[in-house]
Every structure is written in structure tokens, then in C-alpha cells.
């Protein structure tokens, strides 16, 4: 005979079972399956053979993978750093605007709601050597004599894909920071005014400490998304010129789909996992500390 407590427990487990099943099926299974595949020699159509860490060892030994890892780091760090600055500036500016705030916020959100494919194609066209608006404008106003090789020069190609990524992602930072700014009590600023604090001091001593949890979470989420970005690079440069913009996602695609080598492709896409895991642990622990 079940006691009331047991009945309650049973009901509780039953209620959370669907969510647990869904999480297991949609998150845990693919994730664990990807980790397992990364430890196998898996060619599409053939059974997987366990090879331990061989795929990772081979990747570390591969000059190409090292280029890809470096490119991914540059792409992610540069994108996040600039998105952070622009997003903060956007939030601070919007926080001051009284009239038309909603309208401006809507306009600034546009890049975030436009499909990434459209953004990538638009940037590709804007930066086209011959017909791109950027080059045509620069030539017309006499800044340059001939078109700039935005997508051809290795450094500029990286800069170009980073610019497109920033343009797409900064509204997420801006809107999140703005929401956080609106929770900072006005009294703190009033008190700072009485003490004679300047704008810069108020930002460093009041604003930033008050919203730092949001900044940490937004940066973490955006780092994960940016590190796994595929569309922008694939559409704008296909990883070129050469391997100058080849990043984890495009490299994994090349290995997994074009070369049909799932095992090593999974290993390539898992390579950033330790770093991301460390970031997640760091941010979560920091948030816990803040809460306490």
C-alpha cells in the first residue's frame, strides 16, 4: 500500500517524465552520440569502429586543423568583443532615449530577426569586388582607385566575415543589456550625482556592476553561437581564400558531408567543447556566487 508521500513522489516523477524524456531524446542522446562518434572511425554507410582518442590526436597533428582552430578563435573573440562594445553602446543610448524608444529598438532588432542566409548573401554582395556597394562607393568618392579585395585578401576576408557576424549579433547584446539597465535603481545614480560622480565613474561603479550577470550570460550564449556559426562563412567565403576563413563548422562540414568522415568530423566539431564547458562552468559558478 502506497503512502501519501510515496504517491506524491510518484506523481512528481510522472509529471516530469515527459520533459525528462524529451531532454534525453533531443539533447542528451545527440550529444552523447556525437561524443561517441568522435571516438570512432566512422565513414558514412559503414559501421563505426572505436578508435579511442585517435581522431583527436590526428587533428592535433594536422596543420590544417591548427589553422582552423586559430581562425575559429579569431572569428569568435573578435566578433564577441565588438558585439559587446556596440551592444553596450546601443543599450546605453537607448536607455537615454525617451521619445520613439520602442520604434528605434524595433529597427535595431532587425539584423537579429533577418535570416542569417539573407544577411550573409547581402554582405557578400555589399563586399563584392566589382559590383559591391562598398567598393563602388569607395571608388566614387575617391577613397580608393580600384576595388578593395574584401573577400579575397586573407586578413580582409576574416574581417569581412567578422563584420557580418557582428552586424547580425549586436542587437541581441543591446536588447539584453537594455533590459538589464532598466532594472538598475535610479536612486543609485541620484546618490552618485550628489557625490559628484561623472558619467564614466557612474558607468564603471554602478551600471556595469549592476548588469554584470546579464553581460556574462549574454557573452557566454553568444560565444557558443558564434563558435558554431556556419552560414555566414560558408556563404561569404566557403572558408577561403585558401583556408583563411575556414572555421570549425565549415571544416566539420567538409570532413563530415563532403568527405563522408563522420568520426573525424565529430572530433573536429567537439574540439572546442572543453573550452566552452570551462566557460559555462565559470559563468555558472560566478552567477551562483553573485546570487549568494
Amino acid at each position, binding site marked *: 500500500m502506497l503512502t501519501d508521500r510515496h*504517491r506524491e513522489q510518484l506523481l512528481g516523477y510522472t509529471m516530469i517524465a*515527459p520533459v525528462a524524456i524529451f531532454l534525453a531524446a533531443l539533447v542528451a542522446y545527440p550529444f552523447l552520440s556525437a561524443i561517441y562518434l568522435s571516438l570512432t572511425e566512422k565513414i*558514412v554507410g*559503414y559501421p563505426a569502429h572505436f578508435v579511442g582518442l585517435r581522431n583527436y590526436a590526428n587533428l592535433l597533428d594536422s596543420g590544417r586543423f591548427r589553422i582552423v582552430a586559430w581562425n575559429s578563435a579569431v572569428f569568435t573573440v573578435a566578433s564577441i568583443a565588438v558585439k559587446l562594445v556596440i551592444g553596450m553602446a546601443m543599450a546605453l543610448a537607448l536607455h537615454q532615449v525617451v521619445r520613439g524608444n520602442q520604434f528605434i529598438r524595433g529597427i535595431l532588432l532587425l539584423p537579429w530577426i533577418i535570416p542569417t542566409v539573407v544577411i550573409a548573401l547581402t554582405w557578400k554582395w555589399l563586399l*563584392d569586388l566589382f559590383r559591391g556597394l562598398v567598393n563602388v562607393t569607395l571608388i566614387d568618392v575617391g577613397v580608393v582607385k580600384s576595388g578593395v*579585395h574584401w573577400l579575397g585578401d586573407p586578413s580582409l576576408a576574416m574581417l569581412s566575415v567578422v563584420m557580418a557576424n557582428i552586424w547580425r549579433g549586436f542587437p541581441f547584446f543591446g536588447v539584453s543589456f537594455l533590459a538589464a539597465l532598466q532594472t538598475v535603481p535610479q536612486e543609485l545614480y541620484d546618490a552618485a550625482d550628489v557625490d559628484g560622480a561623472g558619467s564614466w565613474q557612474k558607468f564603471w561603479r554602478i551600471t556595469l556592476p549592476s548588469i554584470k550577470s546579464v553581460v556574462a550570460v549574454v557573452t557566454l550564449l553568444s560565444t557558443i553561437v558564434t563558435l558554431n556559426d556556419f552560414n555566414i562563412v560558408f556563404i561569404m567565403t566557403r572558408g*577561403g*581564400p*585558401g583556408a583563411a576563413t575556414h572555421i570549425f563548422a565549415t571544416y566539420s562540414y567538409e570532413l563530415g558531408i*563532403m568527405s563522408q568522415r563522420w568520426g573525424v568530423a565529430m572530433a573536429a566539431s567537439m574540439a572546442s567543447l572543453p573550452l566552452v564547458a570551462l566557460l559555462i562552468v565559470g559563468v555558472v559558478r560566478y552567477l551562483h556566487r553573485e546570487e549568494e
Partner: protein
Amino acid sequence: MSTLTRLTPLAVLLIVVVALVAPDPGPTAGAGKLSLWRLKTYIPPADKILDANAQECAKKAGMELAIQTYTFDDMWTKYTAAIESKTLPDIAELDAVGPARLANLGRLSDMSDVVGGVTKELGPILANAEGAVKFGGKYYAVPHYGIPLVLFYRKDILEKIGAEPPDTWEAIQQISQKVKQAGIHDFPNGFPWNRTGDGYDPAMSLLWSYGAAWVDKSGKFTGIPKGPAVQALKVVTSAYLVDKTAAFDYLSWSGSTNNESFMAGKITFTPNGPSILFQEESNKHPLQKDTAIKLMPKGPAGRNLALTFVMNWGVPVDGKQQKEAKAVVGCIMSRTQWMKYMTGSFQQAVPLFARPLDDPYWNTPNGKTIVETVKLGHPVGWPGPTTPAAAEVVSSNVLTDMITQVIVDKVTPEAAVDEANKRIKEIYDRLPVK
């Protein structure tokens, strides 16, 4: 309310969810239904004719036909998922490397009987198309058509600088320099050594025309011979590094950017399928009168062109109605249906069987060049047959990476060839040729 009563809606919800996520019974579960996957080409009117032909053939076989399409970009994404989930279509149009890959997996039916029937109507299969579909004495796919890559050039510009249409890789460089010096185009040489067919197809033609294949006649790895390969690399990379007649941006082009740049009047040369001719004709493009095509260049070892864009019909073993699927393929390749398709393809669909090549339809200056290109073309992995390893050399961009390493990473041609050989050897070690 009892616990059980409260849980009833939850149970119903679970049943509904399970029903919704239950696996699809697959395309062939219903009797009388076939699925066909085909390439979506740059010639929509031709695609329409092919679909109508396929539907007519399915009707004759007493079947319903569901057609799905893919582009060159998403073809292997679609096939990879289908191979793993064992849901390949009943009829699959496969690219140049598809039959080798799928046959090696044991996933394609023997199509020798269908090929036999088609040869009766369309004549013998071209020897250079055979390497991509015949393995171990059996045909695992029926060659559908080839899209030859030809050299597009601006005849008005060549006339202006008094140059003959180029016939060698060196001549393209020299003429490009003249065009640049004349101030007509800053970067006339539109050869993109990129990660698309417009990159790797000319890369094979280049290397082979210098005698730098990576396999022997049996398809086994021998390594790219350094001397000829270095010579070839020096010729084409000088356009980027020395003469500056090609822009680095070309290395990041997509499959259509060279078409667009040529039609925008920004480049003098580019390799492409005949689709530019169709686009110019259908848009009454002002450059149509100035656009000309020629066979891709020859080198010291001859004109050894690659025939990379070849489509083939395969019948995967996953299907339960293979007899009907084969009947549909046979019908699509029957003389009546094929001629309808070929003559509506704006000269893009070149037959890979001998008889239709002699049709008066090809008796135009462009038509003759296109047919000649197919006749001279070699399959991926030449001088051997197309093997899974050869397929991977192409799909992992080893050849174009070798060229771009010299251009972008400033690696010496010798070191780039060494690196390419290392990568190719690793592929052949992993996928040994049987």
C-alpha cells in the same frame, strides 16, 4: 479526482507525441509509389521536361512518382542522411562520384540490364563515362548526361587587343596580361581555384594536361609527380602573384559568382558549364554577341580534360520496387524521351551514349565545342576509374588547396605538392583501391 484520472490527459498527450515522432514508413511503403531525387540545374526549362518525362515513364510502369530536387551544394547533405537512415530514394540521380561511393557500400542495384537496353537505342556508352559507373564488370548506374566545363571568353576584347583565342594555360596568362595592360579589365583571368566545381574541375584538367595525375591506370595511388605539377602550379599561380591578372577574391567565389562576373562584363575568361549561354540568351543579354566558348586549355601532356559534372541514374537497394524503378530509368533514357530532354536543355545536357552526339542538334559552333569537350573528358580519378578514394580527393578539395596554398599561404609549389601528396596518400591508405 484520483491520480489516475488526473494522469489520463498526460497519457493521451504522450501517445499523440509518440505517434507524431514515430519514424516515417519511407517513400516506398505504399504500393505503386516511387521516389526520385534529381539535380536542380541552372536550366529550369530542361528540368521541367525531365520531370514530365519521368512522370510519363512512371505512369507507363503503373507507378506514382514523387520527385525531390537538390543542388550541387546540398546534394551530399541529403544523400549522407539517406545513406545512414537507409532511406535512399527508389531512383537517384547521382553526380560523378556518387555511383562509386554507393556501389562501394553495396547500396546500388546492378543496372547492367538497363544499360544494355539503353545502348540498343542510344548507341554504345562513351568510354570516358564508363569509369564512373562500371565497377567489377557491372554497371551500377546509367550515365544520364554530362555538363562539360568550357572556357568562356570575350571575343570582342580579344579582337581589340589582337589576340587569338587561347589554347594553352600559358596563352591565357599572356592574353590576360595584355588585357590588363590595355586597361580593359583589372583582373581578366577569372579562374577560381575555389571549393566548387568551377575550381576542382579545372584543377584536374590543369594537372592532367601537365601529366600530373595522382593514380595509375588501375586507380592505385602513385603520387602527383612533382616536376610537372610544380610547372603547372607556377603557370596558374603567377596570375595571382606575379602578373596580378587574377584577384584573390576569385578564390572565395561561389559556384555562380563567376557567371555573374562574366555577365557583368568584369572578366575576360572563366571556366563554366554552358549555363552562361542559356542565361544570356534567355535575358537577351547585351554581352551575348561578344561571348564565345572554347575547349579548356591543353598542356605539355595534351588536352586531358576533366569530366566532373556527370549525372547518372542509380537504383538504390533500399527500394522495394527496384524492377519498376529500373523500368522508369530505362524509359527516361529511351530515345524518344531522351531526345525531348536533350533538345530542350539549351545544350547543357550532353549525352554520354554515342548516337545522340551525332544529332544535328549539336551542329552549331558552340554545340560542336560542347560535344568535343565531353568526348575528350576524363572521369574523376583518371587515368584509373572513379574510386571512393578519388572521389574524396576531389570532395576534400586537396587539389585546389594545393593551388591556394601557393597563392594565399605563400608556400612554395614544391612544398604544396608534397602536402597534397601526403593528404592523398592518407586518403588512399584509408580507402584502398580494390
